[in-house]
C-alpha cells in the first residue's frame, strides 16, 4: 500500500476545506482572508461579469447559533444602504451546510495602512468624518457596530470610505435607539487576527458578553455591561480611532474583564504624544473617549459635525477658545485672502510713493 506524501495530504485537505459553490452561480477565484468565524473569498459572478467577495462560515452549521448569526450579520448590512457600508448582494447556504453571503469587493487599504502612508492630518480627518457619517447612518437605523477600529475601515481606490465587519453589531429597538436594555445582541466568537492589542475578543462574563477590541472598546463594553451599550459606545470607539489617526498610536486598553492581567493605564492625551496636534482636535478626541458615556458626544453625527468644523477651521463644540486663539484661527483660515489684500496695499503704497518721488 502506497503512503501519501505530506504535500498530497495538504492538497487533499485544501480541496476538502474549499467550499463547494457548484450549486450557486458564483465561481471562487482565491482566498482573500481567513478569520476565526469564516473565510472571505474573491469570487466571480458570471451573470453580471463582475468580481465580488464572498464570506463563508468556517463550519457547516447553518442551523446552529453561529450560522443564524452570520445570516443576521448579512441582514444587518443589507438593511444599511449607505455609500460607506459594503452592500450585501446575496445570502445562502452551501450544499455542505455552510452559510455564505456575497458582497461588493472592496479594493483598497485599511485605515491604519492609509494612515501610515498619508501624511496630511486634514486628509485623515476627512476620511474619519466619512466613517463617522456611515456609523451615524447605522445608528439612525438602530444598529450599533461595537467593533470599530482602524482595521475595520477600508479606504477604496477612489478614496471612498467603507465601514466593515458588522459581525458583532447589535440592533437597538426602533423606539429606544439610545437605550440597550431590550436590545437584541448578535454575538460571534473570537476572531483570531494576531496576538496584539488590536485582536478582537469575545468573552463571557457575569454581566454579559465582552465583544470588541481592547483599546478601541468603551469602558462599559470592556466591563461586559451589555445592557449599557448604545451608540455612545461606538462614539468612544470612533474617538479611539481619531486618537490613533492623530498620534499614530492605539489608545491604552480600558480596565475591564478583557484585560484581567493588565494594570489600567490612563491613555496619555494626544498632545502629550504630539505637541503639533491642535487643542480643538485633542478636545474632540477626549470628549468622544470620555470614560462616562454621558460626557461623550450623544451621536456619531454630532462627532462628525465637530470634525467637519475642525477641518473647516471653525469653532468646535468640544473646545472653548480664548480671544487670542479665535484671532489666530481666523487669520489661519483666511490667510490667502489676507495675503492678497496685503499685496494689493503694498502695490498701492508703491504707486503712492513712486508718484511722490
Amino acid at each position: 500500500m502506497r503512503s501519501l506524501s505530506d504535500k498530497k495530504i495538504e492538497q487533499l485537505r485544501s480541496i476538502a476545506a474549499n467550499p463547494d459553490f457548484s450549486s450557486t452561480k458564483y465561481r471562487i477565484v482565491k482566498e482573500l482572508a481567513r478569520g476565526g468565524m469564516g473565510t472571505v473569498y474573491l469570487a466571480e459572478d458570471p451573470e453580471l461579469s463582475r468580481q465580488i467577495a464572498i464570506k463563508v462560515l468556517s463550519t457547516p452549521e447553518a442551523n446552529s447559533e453561529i450560522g443564524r448569526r452570520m445570516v443576521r450579520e448579512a441582514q444587518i448590512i443589507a438593511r444599511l444602504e449607505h455609500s460607506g457600508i459594503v452592500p450585501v448582494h446575496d445570502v445562502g447556504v452551501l450544499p455542505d451546510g455552510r452559510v455564505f453571503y456575497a458582497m461588493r469587493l472592496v479594493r483598497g487599504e485599511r485605515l491604519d495602512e492609509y494612515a501610515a502612508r498619508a501624511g496630511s492630518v486634514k486628509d485623515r480627518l476627512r476620511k474619519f468624518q466619512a466613517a463617522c457619517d456611515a456609523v451615524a447612518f447605522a445608528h439612525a437605523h438602530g444598529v450599533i457596530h461595537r467593533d470599530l477600529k482602524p482595521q475595520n475601515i477600508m479606504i477604496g481606490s477612489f478614496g471612498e470610505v467603507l465601514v466593515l465587519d458588522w459581525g458583532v453589531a447589535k440592533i437597538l429597538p426602533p423606539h429606544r435607539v439610545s437605550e440597550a436594555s431590550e436590545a437584541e445582541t448578535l454575538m460571534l466568537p473570537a476572531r483570531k487576527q494576531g496576538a496584539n492589542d488590536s485582536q478582537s475578543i469575545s468573552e463571557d462574563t457575569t454581566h454579559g458578553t465582552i465583544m470588541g477590541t481592547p483599546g478601541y472598546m468603551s469602558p462599559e463594553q470592556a466591563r461586559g455591561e451589555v445592557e449599557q451599550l448604545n451608540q455612545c459606545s461606538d462614539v468612544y470607539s470612533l474617538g479611539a480611532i481619531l486618537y490613533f489617526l492623530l498620534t499614530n498610536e492605539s489608545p491604552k486598553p480600558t480596565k475591564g474583564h478583557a484585560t484581567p492581567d493588565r494594570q489600567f493605564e490612563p491613555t496619555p492625551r494626544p498632545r502629550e504624544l504630539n505637541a503639533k496636534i491642535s487643542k480643538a482636535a485633542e478636545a474632540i478626541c477626549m470628549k468622544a473617549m470620555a470614560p462616562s458615556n454621558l460626557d461623550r458626544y450623544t451621536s456619531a453625527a454630532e462627532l462628525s459635525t465637530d470634525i467637519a468644523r475642525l477641518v473647516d477651521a471653525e469653532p468646535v463644540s468640544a473646545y472653548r477658545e480664548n480671544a487670542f486663539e479665535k484671532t489666530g484661527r481666523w487669520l489661519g483660515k483666511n490667510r490667502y485672502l489676507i495675503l492678497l489684500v496685503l499685496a494689493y496695499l503694498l502695490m498701492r503704497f508703491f504707486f503712492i510713493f513712486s508718484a511722490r518721488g
Partner: protein
Amino acid sequence: MSKPLIGILLGAVLGTFDGLTAWFTPAVRNELASIVVSSTFKGIIAGIAIGFFAKKYQSLPIGIMFGLAVGALLAFLTAHFAVGGYYFAIMLPGSMVGLIVGFATQKYGQVPRVAHS
C-alpha cells in the same frame, strides 16, 4: 451670504479705497469725488459679474482668472476714457481688485444647492 453679495460688497469697498488713493496724486486731486464714484461703481459692476460667475462655476483657478479679466477690462475702459493716460496706474490695481474679488467669491459664500427631483 450669497456669492454675488460678497462680490458686490468687496468690489464696492476695494473700489472706494482704490478711488480714494487718487488723493495722493496731486494732478487729479481736484477730481477725487468723481474718481471715487466711478471707481466704486466699477468695483460694484466687477463684483456683480464675478459673484454671479462664482455662483455658476465653482472653480478657484477659473474664478480667479475671470476676476482678473473682468477687473482688467473695466480698468482698461476707465483708463481709456480718463485724461492723462494712467493705464498702468489704473489697470494694475483694477486687475488686482478683480483677482481678489474672484478669489473671495470662490472661497466664501453659500454654494447654491442643486434641487433633486
